[in-house]
């Protein structure tokens, strides 16, 4: 049978070791587009939808971590306790595609594809999330920055399956904003996640470079000034710092110039929202 639907992680990693050319499938919202348009011709597929721990998530207040299994769909992140614990992820999830896409598309698939426009990715970067990977013989966890190594490239080894992510809970405001050509069903032209923890700002950008960009210089600059002092004119300066750290390109979705403009607007807006000014 060239299609496997394993019901445990152990079974899945063993199948992948035995079938190194197998394609891993979760929601199919990226992979089936490639299959339908003849860009991908899978001979063997391992569908991960029946692995119970991949569908689970939990909020562990003792360790201060939210764990999300790789098959959890965006629809689950949009509402309820998960959205309360991770408002930026909920906002990012709500911008993905359409309700139909959000019912099927998963965080594991977003990480598997690793597009610079992937909407969950700036959130994972800004919140210092850790990605969990497992093979038949070993398991490891890597920071998001170590995981995403290029456009649509990640450091997952061929025999590894992404099992989920752990995301630290922040004690301050967090939000996500995205620019696209319309409100529904749109891949981002520029996106920003901003989070505040221990009164320190963290910022990550999507669609503004080959990988998600964590703006450490902008963070250091604004944090040296202190959140209590932020006003509209400092927010404008912050926008310029973020623009300087972005590495946008011209492509079919936008020009680099517009992206650079938009990312500053989004970053300043989120900063002012974060400090409630």
């Amino acid at each position: 049978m060239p299609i496997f639907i394993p019901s445990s992680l152990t079974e899945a990693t063993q199948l992948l070791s035995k079938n190194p050319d197998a394609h891993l499938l979760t929601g199919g919202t990226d992979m089936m587009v490639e299959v339908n348009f003849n860009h991908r011709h899978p001979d063997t597929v391992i569908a991960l939808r029946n692995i119970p721990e991949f569908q689970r998530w939990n909020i562990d207040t003792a360790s201060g971590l939210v764990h999300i299994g790789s098959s959890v769909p965006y629809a689950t992140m949009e509402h309820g306790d998960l959205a309360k614990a991770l408002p930026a992820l909920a906002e990012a999830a709500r911008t993905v595609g359409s309700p139909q896409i959000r019912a099927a598309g998963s965080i594991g698939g977003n990480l598997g594809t690793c597009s610079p426009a992937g909407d969950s990715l700036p959130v994972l970067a800004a919140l210092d999330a850790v990605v969990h990977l497992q093979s038949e013989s070993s398991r490891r966890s890597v920071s998001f920055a170590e995981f995403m190594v290029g456009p649509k490239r990640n450091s997952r080894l061929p025999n590894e399956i992404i099992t989920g992510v752990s995301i630290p809970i922040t004690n301050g405001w967090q939000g996500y904003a995205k620019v696209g050509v319309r409100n529904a069903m749109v891949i981002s032209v520029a996106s920003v996640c901003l989070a505040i923890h221990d009164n320190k700002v963290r910022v990550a950008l999507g669609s503004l470079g080959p990988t998600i960009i964590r703006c450490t210089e902008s963070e250091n600059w604004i944090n040296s000034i202190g959140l209590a002092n932020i006003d509209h004119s400092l927010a404008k300066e912050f926008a310029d710092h973020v623009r300087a750290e972005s590495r946008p390109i011209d492509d079919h979705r936008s020009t680099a110039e517009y992206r650079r403009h938009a990312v500053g607007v989004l970053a300043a807006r989120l900063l002012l929202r974060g400090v409630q000014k």
Partner: protein
Amino acid sequence: MSELEHYSLTVNGVERQVSDAWIGESLLYVLRERLGLPGSKGACEQGECGSCTVFVDNAAVCSCLVMAATAVGTQIATVEGLNDDGSLTDVQEAFITEGAVQCGFCTPGLVMAVHHLLDHNDSPNEQEIKEALSGNICRCTGYGRIFAAVDTVISVRKGVSS
């Protein structure tokens, strides 16, 4: 390249055999071309238009993005099976009476999306309705008639005459 496959899918409560299929076939293709259920429409085959919307285990998804052979063991519901006896549902009736159908290509997908919305929320506000239908594209009606149909179903289900 193509593999012969035999598997069965549960569609509208009935177990159906699928044979001689390639593993990469979408559920949309299998429903229409192999199981004789052409109600679900295919326009984009990339998740953009929603005309192929079906329920898989009660979730409204694009059948063009479901690999059919991986849907083994799920409950699949299509527009053909909304009412057991094949009669029109209140949503379908409202689409007709409100003039929400022009060419009709988007209609099956929209009918599924509206059923999904109203099964989970009996009094959605305007924003919730628009968001719930944002994955379904209609090139004919301009959506006004579709929203009118949704409002009609909401009123009728609440026992308010429309």
